[in-house]
C-alpha cells in the first residue's frame, strides 16, 4: 500500500507521514511535502473585514465522495509521473489559526517529479474535492467562494502534459 488518503478530524503528524514516504523504496531520492495551515486572516470573504482576526474555520465534506475523488486525483497524477508513494490527508471539523488543514506528500526518484506532482495534487484537491470551508471572524460567519487563481492553476495543468 503505497498511497494513503485520509479525511479526518484528528490532527496529523508530518514526521510520521514523511517517514512512511521515505521508507517506501530504496529508490526514493526526493520527498516533497505540503502542509496547509489556518491563517489568522481571510481576504477572500466578502462579508468579513480582511483585517479581522479569524476565530476559526469549519471544514465540511461529502463522506465517500471525497475519498473517491482524492483517489481519482492521485490516479491522474500517476498517469503523468512515476510516483513511489503519495499521501493526502485533509482535516474536517472546526480548526483554529495555525492549525494544520491539509497534507500532501510525494516520494519519487527525482525532485522535479515530486514537486510537480505535489503541486498538481494540491491544485486539483482545491478545485475538485468535495470540501467546503466556512470562516468565522468579526462576529460573522461565511462560506467561502472558490478562488479564481485556483481554477486558473488547474487550467494550466490541462494545457501542459510535459513532465
Amino acid at each position, binding site marked *: 500500500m503505497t498511497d494513503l488518503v485520509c479525511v479526518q478530524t484528528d490532527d496529523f503528524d508530518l514526521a510520521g507521514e514523511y517517514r512512511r514516504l521515505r521508507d517506501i523504496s530504496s529508490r526514493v531520492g526526493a520527498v516533497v511535502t505540503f502542509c496547509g495551515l489556518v491563517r489568522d486572516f481571510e481576504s477572500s470573504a466578502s462579508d468579513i473585514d480582511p483585517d479581522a482576526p479569524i476565530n476559526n474555520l469549519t471544514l*465540511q465534506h461529502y463522506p465517500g465522495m471525497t475519498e473517491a475523488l482524492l483517489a481519482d486525483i492521485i490516479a491522474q497524477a500517476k498517469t503523468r509521473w512515476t510516483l513511489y508513494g503519495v499521501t493526502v490527508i485533509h482535516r474536517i471539523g472546526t480548526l483554529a489559526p495555525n492549525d494544520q488543514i491539509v497534507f500532501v506528500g510525494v516520494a519519487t526518484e527525482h525532485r522535479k517529479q515530486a514537486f510537480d506532482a505535489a503541486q498538481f495534487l*494540491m491544485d486539483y*484537491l482545491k478545485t475538485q*474535492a468535495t470540501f*467546503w470551508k466556512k470562516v468565522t471572524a468579526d462576529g460573522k460567519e461565511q*462560506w467561502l467562494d*472558490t478562488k479564481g487563481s485556483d481554477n486558473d492553476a488547474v487550467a494550466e495543468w490541462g494545457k501542459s502534459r510535459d513532465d
Partner: protein
Amino acid sequence: MVNLAFGKQTTQGLPGVIDLLFFGRLGDLAGEVDRSVSCIESRATPLAIREWLALDHQSLAKELCEPQVLVSVNKMIVKWDQPLFDGDEVAFLPPVTGG
C-alpha cells in the same frame, strides 16, 4: 419526510424515497444538510426537485440555479435531467473550497 409531487403528471411506476444532501451554504439555506423526500412519481430528476424546492425555499432554489452548483447522484456528478430511482442519494454541491 416530505411528500413530493412533481407538477400534475400522472404517477408511473413505483414511488420511492430519495435522499437530498445540501452542502456548504446550501445547507444553511435548506435549514438542514440531509433531508429525505418521498417521491410519488417515477419521472423525478434533480431539475424537478429544484423546481419543487422553489415552492417553499425561494432563496435555496435561487442558489441552486447558480451555474457553479453541481449535482451528484449516488456520489457521481450528473446532469440535472438525470432520472432518479428509489433510494438514490442526490447531493447539491456548491463550488468546493477545501485545502
